[in-house]
């Protein structure tokens, strides 16, 4: 759902850049306080994984495809949506500048949608449902993160006069409700994999025991 150049008027891209820069300020402050020697490499591995996964478009019906965002994954692993903002900002910036995926003028909006909104939605759903069932919570966090982000894109494009409101929300919501199933499934598999090889890297294992597991 990378917005290209030309879909948003420049003054609106400016507003999204300002919101994103404010979010990045908070995200960097979070990083300053919370990243330690082993969480820097964890974050970098997640950025590499998400970059590669975003190139893997999964077919859905209606001659359409989609890829995961990864924001919910990062937010859950690190126990903070700010981590998702940072990782997605890096991934989307690399995509925009090196691969022409997502417009440079729309980069602020793209980080807002796929980093901030997806990250906070995924983390919020995870927190709300965590106690009911951990893995269901993770799946639904992944699903909701991309679904809500796609609605945000539809609203931005409607405000810009690029998409009609109703059809924009319907098409974006419908496609990403389906792509969200893949997002949820990949989020579960990725966290299961980390849980298996390095449970101490998962935030909830850090907080649950007070000290770190497997040290």
């Amino acid at each position: 759902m990378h917005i290209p150049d030309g879909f948003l008027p420049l003054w609106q891209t400016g507003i999204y850049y300002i919101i994103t820069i404010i979010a990045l300020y908070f995200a960097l402050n979070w990083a300053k306080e919370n990243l330690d020697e082993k969480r820097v490499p964890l974050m970098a591995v997640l950025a590499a994984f998400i970059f590669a996964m975003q190139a893997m478009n999964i077919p859905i019906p209606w001659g359409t495809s989609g890829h995961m965002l990864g924001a919910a994954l990062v937010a859950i692993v690190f126990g903070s949506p700010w981590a998702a903002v940072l990782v997605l900002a890096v991934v989307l910036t690399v995509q925009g500048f090196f691969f022409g995926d997502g417009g440079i003028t729309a980069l602020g909006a793209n980080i807002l949608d796929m980093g901030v909104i997806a990250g906070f939605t995924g983390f919020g759903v995870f927190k709300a449902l965590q106690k009911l069932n951990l893995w269901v919570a993770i799946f639904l966090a992944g699903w909701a993160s991309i679904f809500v982000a796609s609605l945000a894109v539809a609203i931005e494009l409607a405000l810009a006069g690029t998409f009609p409101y109703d059809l924009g929300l319907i098409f974006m919501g419908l496609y990403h409700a389906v792509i969200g199933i893949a997002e949820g499934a990949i989020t579960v598999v990725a966290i299961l994999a980390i849980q298996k090889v390095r449970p101490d890297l998962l935030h909830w294992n850090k907080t649950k025991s007070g000290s770190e597991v497997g040290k």
Partner: protein
Amino acid sequence: MKAKDKKFVIGGLIVAIIIAILAPFLASSDPDGLESAAEKILLVEETEPMFEAPLPDYLVPALGESPLGGAISIVIGTIIAFLAMVGLATTARWFKSNSNDS
């Protein structure tokens, strides 16, 4: 870096690079959700990108639209994303150690 962290990084990077190599062979070339919606309901004219990216659309221009060029460019991107994340996260930590000194 501790040995087990190094192992995790190497293992994680191998997984990411395998996905990157396979992506152009396995990925659907159908338009994504936003492109697909745009094909149906776009109210404005599509415009050219503001600047020409060095590897546009995850392809190496010299290799044309081959999955090989796709694999090469996605592997390059995966490594750039890894290094950029290390750089940004390390810079953030550097600010912390600096503010502690003062």
